[in-house]
């Protein structure tokens, strides 16, 4: 997976977030302040623009630029958290012109570690971590079992989706939803939903490029 792959991933993520913007906003209206869809669409729109304007010769530089752009454009908690996730992933990929599946897995683990360090969320608190952590585990498991790329990334995306769905029954312990206490139960977390979209886009781009 070269820099062009990662650019395609970010572009696909932007498209996914834009197409689901109202849905994300609705999720955020139920347990937040109704701006997640708007903010993510704006942020990822800026990411696409930045990738068109600036040179990104390596996979790492793509994710680092995306992360920095999100920090500068999204605001709220999502900006720093997604920004940290992508910057951590970009840093983990280093200067290599190419990333194989193992490198990608390592980058996503770094993303998770970065998000958890900044936001202090653990699994089960109804956040983006509840989509990202299971996805990282599923990818690691698939790699350990020798699953080829498309199967491994499908497992990643499916785990993220399942993880986002699982947030429905959780009570929010972090972020704005936590102010609602028990009333946050019964609603999907918007951050987990957007994380599932972004990881789904990763699987989609890989599937499109598969021989």
């Amino acid at each position: 997976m070269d820099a062009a792959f990662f650019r395609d991933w970010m572009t696909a993520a932007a498209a996914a977030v834009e197409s689901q913007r109202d849905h994300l906003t609705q999720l955020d209206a139920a347990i937040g302040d109704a701006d997640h869809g708007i903010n993510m669409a704006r942020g990822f729109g800026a990411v696409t623009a930045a990738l068109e304007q600036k040179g990104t010769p390596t996979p790492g530089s793509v994710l680092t630029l995306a992360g920095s752009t999100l920090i500068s454009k999204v605001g709220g908690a999502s900006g720093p958290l997604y920004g940290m996730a992508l910057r951590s992933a970009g840093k983990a990929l280093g200067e290599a012109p190419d990333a194989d599946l193992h490198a990608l897995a390592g980058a996503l683990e770094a993303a998770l570690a970065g998000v958890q360090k900044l936001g202090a969320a653990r699994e089960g608190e109804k956040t983006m971590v509840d989509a990202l952590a299971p996805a990282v585990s599923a990818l690691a498991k698939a790699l350990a079992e020798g699953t080829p790329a498309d199967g491994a990334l499908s497992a990643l995306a499916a785990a993220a989706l399942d993880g986002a769905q699982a947030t429905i029954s959780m009570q929010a312990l972090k972020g704005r939803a936590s102010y609602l206490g028990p009333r946050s139960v019964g609603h999907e977390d918007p951050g987990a939903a957007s994380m599932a979209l972004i990881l789904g886009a990763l699987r989609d781009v890989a599937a499109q490029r598969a021989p």
Partner: protein
Amino acid sequence: MKKLINAPDSVVADALAGVAAAHPSLAVDIENKVITRAGGPTPGKVGLVSGGGSGHEPLHGGFVGLGMLDAACPGEVFTSPVPDQMLAATKAVDAGAGVLHIVKNYTGDVLNFQMAAELAADDGVEVTPVVVNDDVAVQDSLYTAGRRGVGATVFVEKIAGALAERGAPLADVAAMAAEVNERSRSFGVALTSCTIPAAGKPTFELGDGEIELGIGIHGEPGRRRAPLAPAAELAAAVMDAIHADQPLAGDLLVMVNGMGGTPLIELYLVYNEVHKYVTGKGARITRNLVGNYITSLEMQGFSVTVCRLTDALGQLWDAPVDTPALRWGR
């Protein structure tokens, strides 16, 4: 929902252009979304920076001026501003005595201000943050993101601002800000939700006979839903919550704040109930604010913020202030 806008995407920029045109005392950088005093920083004075999502006007831009803030960073509607804004503001107000960041306790605000403070430190500017978390509606526990920063933000900005204007050092200004926060408690009630321009419909639905108790300032639901009741009962519910958390005693500064959509006639009516309640507890309101100071777009409702005053705090509250939203003593 009818709104006075041109397009949802340009609300903040269009409004900032209006603020710039209306207030020559302010320097408004629309592109970077930073509002500062037109006269620039005062040499040797601690700079005060705050910020938050737009939609809470006059907070924070309306409080930039003598005796209060040096800079305000408006984000998108109900969205924390980004580190770039706070960094630009911090450097703009740095007058050699350091900078105080007044941060409302929301995950986004805290994270973005934290990032900005780190960047500012890298550039050699000393920054001390103070977190405002006066809302009694949320339990401060391991199970929440902590108490929200609401009405006390206004008190912190005024009182710490007055101390800074006297030339006090950063540590003292920060300590004063923290003291005001610690001595203040707030609680709010909503009769309606509000509509974010880009969302197009209210964030939550309240029936005709329903109210929401323990609201924040972002249109999100609160502690619980309850039936509409006369103002006396609603005021008592609000004051009970505040009193249970920090008993009303001595001299008080009280703000009856409109959430944006409630008329002044109703706010004064509520103030009457609050005044009776406070007197009934044997305390005295020696200073007050009644009006729209920290709003939530067009939400109908009110919040009360109570600060237990000391002589020092009272004097700082009385000190001259010259901002679009608060102006006295000059």
